């Protein structure tokens, strides 16, 4: 049981646990903050995959961006949303049973498939290992990412900027006060 594994299981535990808590809790605000924990944990899980840059991005964008947005939304959407969310039933209630069953079954199926489908013995991963096409702890991924973004992934890189622009315009349009009103 190496240090690495310990960390991994810890992170995984936190992630899943907090996620479950998000699912379970009645209180909205609390669930949001638990979600923050989940995101952190996931970011932590990125690290053992040698995706440090991605982990950072995750933290920055998610926590700094999305979560904040969500909280703003809460604030904007006033109190009786919070109010009528208070009287939410417990973790398992009749209204949730189908959802729970579905999710559970989904998980079982997934698990079943994952365990059957020995991903560890994938052809291409082994080939990658042979051709040492594996990211190791030594090499830094950042410049690699940078080069790729400037090269192979230039198109998506440009395209997503347009997407963001459009999203910006649209969101702005939706949320701006109507003229003349």
């Amino acid at each position: 049981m190496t240090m690495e594994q310990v960390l991994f299981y810890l992170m995984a535990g936190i992630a899943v646990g907090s996620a479950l808590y998000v699912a379970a809790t009645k209180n909205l605000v609390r669930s949001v903050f638990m979600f923050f924990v989940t995101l952190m944990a996931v970011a932590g899980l990125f690290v053992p995959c040698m995706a440090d840059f991605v982990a950072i991005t995750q933290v920055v964008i998610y926590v700094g961006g999305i979560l904040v947005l969500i909280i703003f939304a809460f604030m904007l959407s006033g109190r009786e949303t919070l109010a009528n969310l208070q009287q939410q039933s417990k973790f398992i209630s009749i209204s949730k049973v189908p959802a729970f069953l579905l999710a559970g079954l989904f998980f079982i199926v997934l698990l079943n498939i994952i365990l059957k489908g020995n991903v560890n013995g994938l052809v291409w991963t082994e080939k990658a290992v042979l051709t040492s096409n594996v990211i190791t702890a030594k090499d830094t991924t950042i410049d690699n990412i940078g080069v790729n973004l400037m090269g192979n992934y230039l198109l998506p890189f440009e395209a997503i900027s347009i997407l963001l622009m459009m999203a910006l315009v649209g969101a702005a349009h939706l949320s701006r006060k109507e003229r003349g009103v």
Partner: protein
Amino acid sequence: MHDLLPSLHGQLDQVLGSLPYFIPEVYLVVFFLAVLVTDLVFGRNSGWMCHILAIVGLVVVIYRDLQQFMFVVNESNVLIFSGMLILTRTAIVLKIFTDLFALVMLFYFVWDDKLSSHNKGLSDLYTITVAAVFGMHLMTMASNLLSVYLSIEMVSIASYLMVAYKAENKWSSEAGLKYVLFGAASSAIMLYGISLLYGLGGSLDIFGMAAGLAQANPLFVSFALVLFFVGIGFKLSFVPMHFWVPDIYEGAPTPITAFLSTVPKFAAFALLISFLAPFTNPALMWRSFDFRLFFSVIGIATMIVGNFAAAMQNNVKRMLAYSSIGHTGFALMAIVTALIMPAGRGLPVLTFYLVAYALAGTAAWMLATYFADAAGAEDMNGYKGLGFKYPVAGVCFVIVLISLTGLPLTAGFYGKFLTFSAAYQAYEIGHNTWLLALMITSAVTTVVSLFYYIKIPLNLFLRKTDRTTGFAAMNNWLLTVVAIITILVVYLGLFPDFLTKYL
């Protein structure tokens, strides 16, 4: 350390090399920015400018598309941007039609009273539209999981915005909410699928991926594929990803609905085609997942659900929404055909079918707008006796619906006819029972579809109304365009090779 730097030059050359194949999209971007800037600069009364700009832009783009068609037509498929996109003949053709219909839609937007009365102005809508068209262009050419996901998201987000665009309208925003939630969820699922595909296939590039998948565990692979198709299914709205369709189509402003129900279909089908292409390659012995079975079943279910559920709709928009589901199902038959015989007529036939459907569909939505604006007719009862009040519109509606049903002397008929013939040919090869089932189902559902399409002429002409008031005078632009489209439909019904010889 910097072991990738040397390859950078190569990659940049690659990028520059692929730019010539990317000219229409470049123009799109340019005009997108132009519209955006005008919008920002001129603020509140920039609507008409943006409108003109967008229209001009699309015209130019279509022109460029045609150029591209001219000179790519003889070359075989081109991979550009290091395999991000693939430029095929079908893709170009579909791009052209996408742009054409988008152009029509751009005109259409302002002719709908409800939409044009939107008090925040339409200028943002044009921006979004252009961006959406750009997204569709990417979609038609995408050949890499990243570009696939990116383009789908782009189109989806644009669609959310369009649906919810009329913010002050209750239904519009409700539809927006449903759309965004459903869409985001399904895209999340698709992303999960993509992640698995990537994991199992070992490459984002779909050809490499296919090669990899062929060796992976079949069960797992099919699982991943199904998750992936959830996303495409959401775009194509086939069963079981169709639930959002009626509500959103009803809630959104009619022109938006028209846009959603016609234009992205081209792109989405193109995407489906290009995604399936590698698997049909006989070189890799594809066993893991039976696409034919999958799409046959989906197609049958879609046809049945769409047409049968439409059979008792009273609201015209809902009815058309369901019927659009049905048409997707029919188009899937062409996909199955293409899967069975990659060399066969599946794709051009599909294109023709889509064009025919898009023509008739656009006209139908426009007429829905027309009657809604003219006589406030939303559902069947509202249409009573309007045929005599607005004869031209009435007749056009009849012809359009006939085309949607697929009766002769309309484009729709040849759509069905060619699909049948292609399917038959495929059947002769494999004697694939599912294909037969598809054909029979489609025949039956055609009859059913008549049953509900005919309701509109029934109310327009066969029933009399006693109302005399509340008939607005109409702007004839809309009617003119409808008439032109109708004539086109009939012309294609008489001389289909006018179109088919280019496919």
